[in-house]
C-alpha cells in the first residue's frame, strides 16, 4: 500500500497510450478530456517518418496542471512522500494561463488518484505599470491599462505579470498513513 503510494506516476501518464490517444479519459466520467500524443511527420526527403516516441502533448492548461503535479509529487517524494493536500501557485496576468481553466484541469487530473481532492490555490499576480520618469508604480483598474503616467504624461512600462510558478505544497507525511485522517 505504502509502496504503491510512494512513487505515484502522474495520473495522465498512468493511462495507457491507447487510452491517452484515442478515448481517454476523463479521469472521471463527467469530464471528457482528450489527451493526445504527438505525431511528427517528416516529408523533407519524400520519406514518411512517424515519431511518437516521447510523452504526451495535451491541451494547454491540462499540460500545465500536469507540470505542477509532477513538480509537487517529486518534491514530496524527496521528503519521504505522502498524500498531497494543497498546492499553491502564482499565475501572472500576462502568463496566458486562465486560473479557472487551470483549476478545472487540476481537479480532473487528481480526481480518482492517490491525491484526489488536493486543492490548487492560485495567487493571481497582476502586471504592474510603472513610470520610468517618476519611478513610481501607478495603480491601474483591474484588467485595464493606463495609456500614460497620470502625473508625467509619459508612456509607462509593464513590470511582472508573467509569473507561472509553483510556490509551495502541503502534504500529509506517509508515517501517518493515508487512511488515518481521511
Amino acid at each position, binding site marked *: 500500500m505504502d509502496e504503491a503510494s510512494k512513487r505515484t506516476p502522474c495520473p495522465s501518464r498512468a493511462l495507457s497510450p491507447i487510452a491517452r490517444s484515442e478515448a481517454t479519459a476523463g479521469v472521471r466520467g463527467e469530464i471528457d478530456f482528450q489527451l493526445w500524443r504527438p505525431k511528427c511527420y517528416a516529408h523533407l526527403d519524400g520519406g514518411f517518418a512517424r515519431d511518437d516516441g516521447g510523452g504526451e502533448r495535451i491541451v494547454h492548461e491540462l499540460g*500545465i496542471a500536469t507540470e505542477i503535479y509532477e513538480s509537487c509529487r517529486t518534491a514530496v517524494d524527496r521528503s519521504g512522500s505522502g498524500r498531497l493536500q494543497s498546492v499553491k501557485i502564482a499565475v501572472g496576468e500576462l502568463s496566458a494561463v486562465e486560473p479557472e481553466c487551470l483549476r478545472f484541469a487540476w481537479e480532473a487530473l487528481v480526481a480518482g488518484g492517490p491525491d484526489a481532492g488536493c486543492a490548487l490555490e492560485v495567487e493571481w499576480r497582476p502586471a504592474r505599470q510603472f513610470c520610468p520618469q517618476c519611478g513610481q508604480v501607478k495603480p491601474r483598474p483591474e484588467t485595464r491599462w493606463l*495609456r500614460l503616467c497620470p502625473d508625467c504624461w509619459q508612456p509607462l512600462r509593464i513590470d511582472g505579470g508573467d509569473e507561472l510558478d509553483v510556490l509551495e505544497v502541503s502534504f500529509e507525511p506517509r508515517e501517518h498513513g493515508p487512511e488515518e485522517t481521511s
Partner: protein
Amino acid sequence: MSRTLDVRRRILEDNDRQAAALRASFKTGGTLVVNMISSPGSGKTALLEATARDLAGRYAMAALEGDIETERDAERLRARGLRAYQILTGGSCHLDARLVARGLEDAAFPALDILFIENVGNLICPTSYDLGEDFKIALLSTAEGDDKPFKYPAIFARAGAVVITKADLGPHVSFDMDVVRGQIETLNPGAPLLVTSARTGDGLEAWYGLLAERLEAKRRHRA
C-alpha cells in the same frame, strides 16, 4: 501532521531548460530564430510565402510549421522553394521546446541564416512557451479587428515586433490603425509595428529590414 514544502519552481522549467539549450545551439550556428504567433488565418504562412519569394537568394532560410493537423502549410512553403518541416501536434494548442528540438532533429536543415517557427494558430497558449527564439512576432490581420491587443495582452506585451497583416483589407473592415498603435504603445512601448500586405507587397520591405537588422545584431554579438 501536515507538512509544507517550499518548492519555488517555474512551472515550465523543463521547457525553459530545453529552450535554453536550443538558444545556445542557434547562437553557435548564428541562426536568427523568429517565433510567429497569431490567430488562425491571420496570414503567417502568406507572409512566409512572400518572404521565401523575395529573400530566396539572400539568406538560407527554413520554416518549422506547427499545426494540429495537415501538412498544408509546409507544402505551401515548399512550393515556394522554402525548406519546411511540418510538426503536427495532434490536438495540442501550441508548440513547446521539446517538439521544436525533435522537429529540428528530423528536419536536418543545413546551416541557416533564419529559421521561422510558425506556431499553432492561437493568440494565447503559445505565448507561455519559450522555444529558444530570438524574438516572437505577434501578427494581427485587419479583419480580426482593432481591439485585439488589449483583449490578448500577453502576446502583444511580449512580442519583439508586431506585424499587422492584410492591410489592404483594412478600409473594408473599419480597422483603425491608430487604435492599434495606441494599444501597442501601451502594452509594449518601443516595439516595432509593421503594417503589411502580403497580397499587395506593401510594408514587406520593412519586414525584411527588421529581419536583416536582427540577424546582423545577432551575428555582431557572436563575433
